[in-house]
């Protein structure tokens, strides 16, 4: 007999269905298709890869702290930066957001019992774990792990220049994780399109969910190109093809073209989820609605669309790409990003902002992403790119951006850890991690802008004392120690919070979206009861009925009618006429 999940009517008295006895223990975990279990799996696995990649980063900074450094051989150093980048980008930042947090939170935010395809969801996780393990297995091979950079440019990545099992494992690993991501993208889009609760129209979804929808579409656009390019590389390496080799009539630059058509949307796949987290967290901790909700949605979609049109800005120095087209498209991304920034500030504006750890990390995100974004505009100019491409200026730019995203990730962890575990993370330790991370990020990466302008190329295993790079490198390496401590304090926090729990309750933050309407952690199939959805903030409306946003209410006079907000108006400016009541159905209370 098949039991089908039901969305309970509001006055469902009984507890959740008791299913027949399922598996228990390890078998229960391995066979689970519950999005919450899969989300936690992804998050923990991604954090483990983060720690491994972080250790590699510390080795890199230890090497570069001194000129003429022989701490690591050139070969080992090249492996380190390759695997650091690969693990961070392919196995941490992406999976933790679209596999971890999104899997857990999106169904809850839209009032769904699970993701649309639970078994496909589970498969995504196992492919990710399998692929990630294969990549790390490279370290166990005789030639050692891949060492051609996380971008694997041809012809360097062919079997003549980089032979061995390590690079092969890297390629196969990414084919597996690529499929994992594509399946997650399918799941995200389908879930958001089909499983929203009654009344949860598209423009009432939380911005995190909107951003995950757009991320899902971007994944579907970008990852197949990457997977195909990897297969082509495999053919070059093992099947005698000459797709990327001049000798057989191939075109090496084609690899760059294909890779970056994936690679640039990929970095926005990494970024958009954290934009969404930050948006939701700032609104909650400012006790105000999101400022410019529709502008945010439009900006996110524009950023995603533009990001797929700019790929060759990574290839300005090849001399074979259309410079004006790609530089204009790259500049244009600043416009919707600026809209988002002003909307984040607008959300805080005249609000009542509490600087608990999630909000602190959001402010850190704003301050750091600004630096990364402005340096990105500089890089979008081909002449400036000629001077700074492949130098530490670029390294500083993307690390500013990525560390901002990591701060967004920590905002998400601190914000949703109570929902996922029923416990609070420690505030004091959280604040310490924040300051260590924020100061550490700036001390590590701001000097690298200067290093790039001074002419230090990237991916160099060592530099000479006469280069004049030493002092700035030393400052940068000192900053890395702060980042290490930030992560350490967070791990201590997670450990202490688990073993000596402070109970969280359903809604410790007085937040607004549907995930806060259910218990912490949520029960099987997520909801015993769902409040009526009449705005973007169903839980807030239920808890603060006198401070709601209303739709379809008639204004008394002009007043502040937010026409752009789809007819939503301030309660104070509105006199409700009798026909249009707060209760649009008797079951709403």
């Amino acid at each position, binding site marked *: 007999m098949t039991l089908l999940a039901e969305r309970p009517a509001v006055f469902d008295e009984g507890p959740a269905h008791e299913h027949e006895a399922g598996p228990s223990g390890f078998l229960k975990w391995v066979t689970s298709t519950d999005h919450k279990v899969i989300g936690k799996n992804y998050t923990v696995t991604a954090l483990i890869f983060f720690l491994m990649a972080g250790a590699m980063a510390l080795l890199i900074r230890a090497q570069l702290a001194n000129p003429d450094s022989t701490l690591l051989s050139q070969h080992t150093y*090249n492996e380190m930066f390759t695997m650091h980048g690969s693990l961070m980008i392919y196995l941490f930042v992406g999976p933790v957001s679209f596999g971890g947090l999104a899997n857990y939170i999106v169904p809850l935010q839209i009032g769904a019992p699970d993701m649309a395809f639970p078994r496909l969801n589970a498969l995504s996780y196992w492919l990710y774990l399998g692929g990630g393990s294969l990549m790390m297995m490279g370290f166990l091979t005789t030639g050692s792990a891949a060492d051609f950079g996380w971008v694997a440019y041809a012809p360097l990545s062919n079997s003549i220049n980089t032979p061995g099992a390590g690079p092969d494992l890297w390629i196969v690993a990414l084919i597996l994780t690529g499929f994992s991501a594509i399946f997650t993208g399918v799941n995200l889009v389908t879930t958001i399109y089909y499983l929203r609760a009654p009344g949860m129209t598209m423009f009432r979804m939380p911005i995190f969910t909107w951003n995950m929808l757009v991320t899902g579409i971007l994944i579907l656009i970008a990852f197949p190109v990457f997977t195909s390019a990897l297969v082509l590389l495999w053919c070059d390496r093992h099947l005698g093809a000459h797709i990327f080799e001049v000798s057989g009539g191939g075109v090496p630059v084609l690899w760059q073209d294909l890779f970056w058509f994936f690679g640039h949307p990929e970095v926005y796949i990494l970024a958009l989820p954290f934009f969404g987290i930050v948006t939701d967290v700032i609104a909650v901790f400012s006790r105000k609605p999101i400022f410019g909700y529709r502008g945010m949605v439009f900006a996110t979609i524009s950023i995603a669309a533009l990001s797929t049109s700019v790929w060759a800005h990574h290839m300005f120095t090849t001399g074979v790409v259309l410079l004006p087209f790609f530089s204009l498209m790259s500049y244009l991304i600043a416009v919707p990003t600026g809209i988002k920034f002003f909307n984040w500030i607008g959300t*805080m504006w*005249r609000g009542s902002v509490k600087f608990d750890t999630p909000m602190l990390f959001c402010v850190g995100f704003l301050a750091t992403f600004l630096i990364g974004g*402005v340096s990105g505009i500089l890089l979008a100019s081909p002449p400036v790119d000629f*001077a700074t491409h492949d130098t530490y200026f670029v390294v500083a730019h993307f690390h500013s951006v990525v560390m901002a995203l990591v701060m967004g990730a920590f905002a998400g962890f601190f914000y949703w850890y109570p929902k996922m575990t029923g416990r609070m993370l420690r505030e004091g330790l959280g604040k310490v991690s924040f300051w260590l991370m924020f100061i550490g990020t700036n001390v590590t990466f701001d000097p690298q802008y200067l290093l790039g302008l001074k002419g230090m*190329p990237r991916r160099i295993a060592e530099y000479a004392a006469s*280069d004049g790079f030493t002092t700035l490198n030393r400052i940068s390496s000192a900053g890395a120690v702060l980042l290490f401590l930030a992560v350490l304090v967070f791990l201590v926090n997670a450990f202490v919070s688990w073993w000596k729990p402070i109970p969280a309750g359903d809604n410790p933050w007085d937040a607004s979206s549907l995930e806060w309407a259910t218990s912490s952690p949520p029960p099987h199939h997520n909801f015993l009861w769902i409040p009526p959805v009449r705005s973007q903030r169903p839980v807030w409306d239920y808890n603060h009925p006198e401070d709601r946003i209303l739709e379809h209410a008639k204004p008394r006079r002009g007043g502040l009618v937010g026409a*752009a907000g789809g007819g939503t108006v301030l309660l104070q400016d509105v006199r409700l006429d009798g026909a249009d009541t707060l209760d649009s159905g008797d079951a709403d209370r």
Partner: protein
Amino acid sequence: MGIPGVAKLRRIARFLLLSTLALGLGGCTLPTFGAFRGATSQGQAEFKLWSWMTIAGLVVAVIVWGLILWAVIAYRRRDPNRIPRQFHDNLPVEIIYTAIPLIIVGVIFFYTVKTENKIDALAPHPAVTIKVTGFQWGWSFSYLNSAGKQVALVETAQTRPPVLAGNPTSPEYPQFVMPLGETTQVELVSADVVHGFYIPAFNFSRYALPGVTNDFDFTPVRTGVFAGHCAQYCGLYHAEMLFSVRVVEPGAFATWLNTQSAAAVAA
């Protein structure tokens, strides 16, 4: 905000305007943050664009940081029970902060295209032509005469490079010479993987690609010796793939070239 607040704002605005004028008229040089002013005319064009873009970027950043800081200070929670006015839209403001960045982008794009056309322009009759070949892990500079025949060659010794990087201007790395004030055209290609021909002091780098030749011009405006690096990761000894450039007076260059050709003939 009452009248005193407005007067305060006016005072701040006046101060900023005066200091900006003083800075500009006083002619003091702004910090370059380590960037090179450019030893070629192309490099100088890049420096100018970079300077203006950096100033614009810093102004934007300071304004936005200022707004963030203001929000963080002025709107922090003082009364735990107060729920602020739940506004969420302001169409005129939103339109303004969409339009202004668009205009800024348009202006930047205009100057960017002008500058990149200047940097990428190729002289029809360059004074000197050098074919540069990057290979794992060194460089070869082949001077060509007007018929395209090689008249001189400077290259990294084909024996394995030293284990650690040294000073790029030292004699163990190849140094090619260019005449001051005249246009040298470089034809850049790679013999194996993608390399990056990067001269920081010229504010310039370009990929050496296998099978595709990249042409570009240098018109030096200063004499001196300038370091060169490989800027595109190319394998094991990427960090040691160094070279340097020496810019000399045209007379000295002609002498040098004759010596090089004579040596090549004699060898």
